[in-house]
């Protein structure tokens, strides 16, 4: 078998040398999560050359969240309906748990069954984040995976690029968007923010469960059909013991996400370990019936920045901005557990601000200040400010709010509906006394009402 010399294929005229990508990109985005991909998409749409550096094998590979994606901003940037979604939220239910009782409130507004379904969907991050990153690539961004940013490049205090864990691993760019999530090693390593106190960080643990022997288990147990789904939130002693936090159960297409999150300071001191707390929560009389016969598909864990408004770091630096969880943009006040909408909104504003600064050829913090201003006037910072006082107060009253009140409400409830041969006046009287005792009589109740007046 001899190909004579004339057939010899010459590669000499092919130029395959490695180009130098320093300053070939206008911006480098650290992390292909919701904030990172949104920032990249926004900048790309404004004509910037953007490089997204993702440490996972694919966008979403390293990302974990409770389970519900809020898409009001995303809807204006991409066609949300063509995204890989699991179910829209048709019912929100809040359960207050003592060790063995539940008192719950449920909302199922009819309008949530119509698009845009209150912009609330359950998703699988492994699928959704990859889809969102693809939108950014479609718009012209460049994505490189399996590459971890380990540090920032500086000239003076101006940030001029990133360093990665690969050989020949530095790349310069005028702007860097830090979207590395809550475990923000790069931002902290480059002194763009301090390490959070453990009181301001929650540890989250979660399982995705399937029901091998039962088809329609989700439709039957959560009373949903078609693409409708449910979002159950739980708090009180039965969910996370005496820690400050809460539990959740969300319905995906044919799996269920069940998990909880509570402060690291509690996990370190009083609480059994996260896995033990999850087991107890899943076995609670009000939760167990939803999960019987389930098998674990995936067990995950995550930390959530919950420092609120006062813990937001400096968002804008010379040549760099912080977005999403890296900027601590998560609202958790017990009723609202929102991080995804905040991440997308911050990515959007950051992207716009970088594009504007690039038009003016400036990289200094003042030129990027538009990002902070836009964020402060958006729902992101305003919601955090609104509930800033609540988080401190709930911390102070946690004994009352998480143990005594749920117990009192449960006892009052069972008292009010007790079936015996005593007259209803006695039942009503006892129920009222249970409640008043817990809140410290009428004066106590009045004080509480004033103390939490801004909650409604």
């Amino acid at each position, binding site marked *: 078998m001899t190909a004579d010399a004339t057939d*010899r*294929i010459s590669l000499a005229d*092919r130029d395959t040398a490695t180009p130098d990508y320093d300053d070939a990109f206008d911006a480098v985005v650290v992390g292909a999560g919701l904030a990172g991909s949104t920032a990249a998409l926004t900048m790309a749409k404004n004509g910037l050359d953007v490089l997204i550096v993702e440490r996972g094998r694919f966008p979403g590979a390293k990302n974990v969240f409770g389970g519900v994606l809020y898409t009001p901003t995303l809807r204006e940037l991409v066609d949300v309906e063509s995204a890989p979604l699991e179910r829209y939220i048709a019912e929100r239910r809040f359960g207050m748990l003592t060790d063995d009782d539940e008192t719950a409130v449920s909302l199922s507004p009819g309008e949530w069954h119509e698009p845009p379904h209150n912009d609330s969907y359950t998703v699988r991050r492994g699928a959704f984040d990859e889809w969102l990153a693809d939108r950014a690539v479609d718009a012209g961004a460049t994505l490189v995976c399996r590459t971890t940013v380990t540090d920032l490049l500086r000239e003076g205090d101006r940030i001029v690029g990133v360093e990665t864990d690969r050989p020949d691993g530095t790349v310069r760019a005028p702007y860097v968007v830090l979207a590395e999530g809550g475990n923000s090693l790069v931002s902290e390593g480059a002194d763009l923010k301090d390490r959070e106190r453990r009181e301001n960080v929650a540890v989250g643990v979660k399982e995705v469960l399937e029901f091998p022997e039962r088809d329609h288990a989700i439709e039957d147990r959560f009373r949903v059909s078609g693409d409708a789904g449910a979002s159950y939130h739980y708090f009180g002693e039965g969910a996370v013991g005496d820690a400050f936090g809460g539990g959740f159960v969300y319905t995906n297409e044919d799996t269920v996400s069940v998990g909880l999150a509570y402060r690291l300071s509690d996990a370190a001191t009083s609480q059994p370990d996260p896995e033990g707390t999850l087991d107890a929560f899943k076995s609670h009389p009000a939760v167990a019936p939803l999960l019987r016969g389930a098998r674990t598909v995936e067990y995950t864990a995550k930390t959530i920045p919950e420092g609120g408004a006062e813990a937001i770091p400096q968002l804008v630096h010379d040549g760099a901005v912080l977005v999403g969880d890296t900027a601590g943009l998560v609202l958790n006040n017990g009723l609202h557990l929102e991080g995804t909408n905040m991440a997308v909104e911050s990515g959007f504003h950051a992207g716009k601000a970088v594009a504007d600064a690039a038009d003016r050829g400036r990289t200094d913090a003042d030129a990027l200040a538009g990002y902070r201003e836009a964020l402060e006037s958006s729902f992101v910072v305003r919601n955090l400010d609104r509930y800033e006082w609540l988080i401190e107060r709930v911390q102070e009253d946690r004994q009352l709010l998480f143990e005594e009140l749920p117990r009192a409400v449960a006892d009052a409830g069972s008292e009010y509906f007790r079936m015996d041969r005593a007259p209803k006046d006695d039942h009503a009287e006892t129920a009222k006394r249970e409640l008043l005792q817990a809140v410290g009589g009428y004066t106590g109740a009045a004080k509480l009402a004033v103390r939490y007046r801004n909650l409604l």
Partner: protein
Amino acid sequence: MTDDPTIVVGVKQVPDDDEVRIDPDTGHLDRASAPAVLNPPDRDALEAALGLRDAAGGTVVAVTMGPPTATDVLEEAVAMGCDDAALITDRAFAGSDTWPTSLTLAAAAESLGADVFVCGEETTDSSTGQVPPGIAAHLGWAQLTYVEGLEPEFDDDRLVARRDVEGGYEIVAADLPVVVAVAYGEFEPRPAGLHRKLYAETEFEPLELSADEIGLDDEEVGIDASPTEVGGMETVEPVERERETVDTAEELADALADAGVVG
């Protein structure tokens, strides 16, 4: 004297082992579901080839036989450091068994002017290990299989290898040109450089070569040049096992004694 050797590396796209699920009703491996990745033993081959270039200079070119989607493995090879890469693609290759496959890779090596052809000892999806010796036979070259280490002596047109053999090893010096099949797990594959990975994944275009361009007629390749065919498949009932779990070593000893297996 070979001063600027051309080192061609054969790589292949295979289903990802960890993602291959057992199809519950047939008991077969459901390969279609698994994503396609670079054949893991090929990373050792790429490292061996790049190591040769580090030691003695030369050009390293990756080649793969497959459909256009196989370009991904060439990108990974270029990202790891290969100077260039070629996709050997032609409908005529469909249904090839190891005979025409080794012929095609031999033709590609010849057309690219290879002095050394390196590949993994086997692929995880067929694992016959026959293709490398087949390529050497088609070309009439020397062959070095189950190679754990390489030492170039290109000034004397020779390549020295340490081969793993039953019960020990051999040191074998082969004249160039030579086909090398590297043992799996014996090399430390290097991580791709950032700029090279960016170039490979966004700008690099592999050279596309058809059967004709590497000097082969359609009848020499594909199904009608393949001596073997699959006559049939039959499921073999798994061996029945007690599957008895015991808690302690003592209980195990007793169980074995009762079963008359020991004592």
